[in-house]
């Protein structure tokens, strides 16, 4: 056994305790001081004469070059000012941002999205954003203002915007004998009937994939609920006001269940990724693609980067008209930029953003990225046939702010996403889904 004298053991334990306590003390103090320090000497990322910008879109050249152009213009106007841009994937960007904000090392400018899981309202609610009203307020489109402002201040520049539309393969429609009426929209019944026609012609009716984005399962469902149930009911869902047992909402869920049963979705939908679902649609064996209009950013890049062939028979249409004749749809703000309040060069940072916001830049954005924007823009100046088709498809829709899950409590949303994905994968029936949603809703109403 241990052959030590008592004294040695005492010395030993004392010393060891001291060492560990020392270690803990050294670090333990940091917690308290962190909380109280705001602009003290702790290392912050920002320095005078330099702007740091963190952005998503590490692999989207079109968006990168857009940002590059804005940076160039800024630097031309501010010689000697350094701008450092770090590109991330959104996933890791969110983690990096939240960690850096909690340690006062946030970048000056950063990418954020007002909606979607991983939402950035926490940055806003915690008073971490710099008010951009002075510099960029004038460039923001009226419909996008609600997304970009909070308690009287403008906290982001809404660069990217999109809405849900039904993309389709014109050849597939021809071969399957499905006619798009003169009105430009199928009816809900026609849509349902077309499923079997496409299948007989050898096409998978929808391309879709729910593996790497939680909201993918609900793309179609959301629009169907909106058309079936109307504005008030749809807008009442996030707060828990609207019940899932409401006859129109239930009918919407059953509709999606029916077309799933008829084979509308690929059997492996649950293991297809968003990027894949685009690629599959471009491959030509899928007839329709319920998607949002950031589609353009992925379609109009070179084929070897995953884009669509130039001669692809692309068609765009809106979803079927609602039972009561409504043509409700929604628009949402996507990728945007904001300035950190703690930035040492907040004003300059805001200035950089103005270089992204001017009408000619808004036009550049749309042309480069082939997507919509929350900036003020005169869309008639865009000549591209794709945009013509988009405008044609959505010409008489009534636009609400969206998406539906934007204001949902995160746990509630989690259930909605999971059940929607299971629904279109054929792993859940309407009854079960409604039951689970009602359970989740009950917790929200508390």
């Amino acid at each position, binding site marked *: 056994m*241990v052959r030590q004298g008592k004294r040695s053991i005492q010395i030993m*334990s004392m010393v*060891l305790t001291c060492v560990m306590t020392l270690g803990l003390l050294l670090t333990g103090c940091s917690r308290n001081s962190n909380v109280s320090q705001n602009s003290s000497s*702790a290392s912050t990322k920002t320095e005078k004469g330099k702007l740091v910008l*963190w952005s998503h879109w590490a*692999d*989207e050249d079109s968006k990168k070059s857009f940002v590059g152009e804005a940076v160039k213009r800024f630097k031309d106007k501010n010689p000697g000012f350094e701008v450092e841009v770090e590109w991330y994937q959104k996933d890791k960007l969110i983690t*990096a941002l939240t960690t*850096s904000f909690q340690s006062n090392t946030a970048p000056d400018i950063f990418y954020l999205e007002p909606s979607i899981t991983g939402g950035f309202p926490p940055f806003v609610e915690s008073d971490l954003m710099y008010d951009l009203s002075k510099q960029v307020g004038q460039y923001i489109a009226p419909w996008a203002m609600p997304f970009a402002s909070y308690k009287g201040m403008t906290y982001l520049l809404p660069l990217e915007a999109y809405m849900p539309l039904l993309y389709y393969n014109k050849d597939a429609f021809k071969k399957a004998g499905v006619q798009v009426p003169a009105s430009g929209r199928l009816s809900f019944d026609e849509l349902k009937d077309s499923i079997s026609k496409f299948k007989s012609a050898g096409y998978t009716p929808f391309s879709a994939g729910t593996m790497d984005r939680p909201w993918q399962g609900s793309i179609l469902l959301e629009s169907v609920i909106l058309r079936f149930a109307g504005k008030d009911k749809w807008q009442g869902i996030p707060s828990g006001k609207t019940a899932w047992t409401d006859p129109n909402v239930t009918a919407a869920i059953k509709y999606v269940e029916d077309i799933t049963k008829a084979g509308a979705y690929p059997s492996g939908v649950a293991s297809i990724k968003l990027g894949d679902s685009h690629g599959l649609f471009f491959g030509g064996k899928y007839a329709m693609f319920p998607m949002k209009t950031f589609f353009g950013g992925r379609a109009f890049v070179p084929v070897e980067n995953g884009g669509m062939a130039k001669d692809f028979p692309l068609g765009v249409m809106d979803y079927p008209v609602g039972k009561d004749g409504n043509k409700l749809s929604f628009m949402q703000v996507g990728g945007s930029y904001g300035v950190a309040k703690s930035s040492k060069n907040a004003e300059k940072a805001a200035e950089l953003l103005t270089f992204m916001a001017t009408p000619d830049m808004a036009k550049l954005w749309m042309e480069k990225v082939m997507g919509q924007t929350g900036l003020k823009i005169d869309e008639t100046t865009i000549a591209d046939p794709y945009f013509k088709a988009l405008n044609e498809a959505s010409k008489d829709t009534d636009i609400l702010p969206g998406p539906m899950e934007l204001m949902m409590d995160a746990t509630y949303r989690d259930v909605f996403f999971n059940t929607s994905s299971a629904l279109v994968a054929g792993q859940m029936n309407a009854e079960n889904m409604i039951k689970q949603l009602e359970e989740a809703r009950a917790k929200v109403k508390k």
Partner: protein
Amino acid sequence: MEQEIKSKGFRANISKLSITFILVLYTIFTLGPILWVLTMSLKSTVDIRKSPYTIPLNPRWSNYYDVWVKSNYSRYFVNSALVVGLSVIVLILVASMAAYCFAKLPFKGSNVVFMVIFTTIMLPSQVILIPLFQLLVKYGLNNSLVGLGLVYVAVQLPMSVYILRSFFAQIPKELSEASRIDGCSEWGIFWKIMFPIATPAISTVLIVSFINLWNEFLFAVIFIQNDSKRTLPLGVMKFVGDVYEDLGRTAAGLIISIIPVIILYILFSDKFIKGMSDGAVKG
């Protein structure tokens, strides 16, 4: 008698056959995916999507060039080599000292201390991400390879101490006794005798930690913000985008990143095997 031998032979043949079958099957299972990646690394992504399983007739070496030169891979490679190499060295020194202490120099409560250290092996690293980051910032170690290296040492410590302790425990006490009588200090005993003997276990720790750290992703992506300081796993992931997975280049990046680990393994595998089994058999 003859019949016995005959039937034994027959049985032996069948078992030989089934053994070979198992070997072949498992080799396909193991190597298959990796060989597939190898073929993909020599094709363009478009080709891969068209015909995923064919062997490239025109190997596209440009994938490797793109990855190494154009995407700053060489920079990432150097960074990884530095950080991981130095961390592992520090790790081995620190861990072996501690392990020796636990194994050979017991004191009251040493088992408790060891137990606490051992428990944290099972903690997923995400759990300590934010406090750790705040710590690094406080001491100016954020966005630095030094900071990352220190974290790496700490994170691999529990496992390494565990492995080395097993090994040291089975070294007969007579060895240290004899040296002690000869007047050698504990410090001397450790460095002159124990450490050299522990080569098998140390090789084990070397390989296991090196593999873990070489492929470590989460801390590397959060604690390092500058592209020029990034490590290899981040380089590999560069081609796996939100929008588009560049299969060909990702595959090339992957092949490049596993080569050093394979070389390391081949060099140290004998010692490593001896170390694990020695340390464990008697452990």
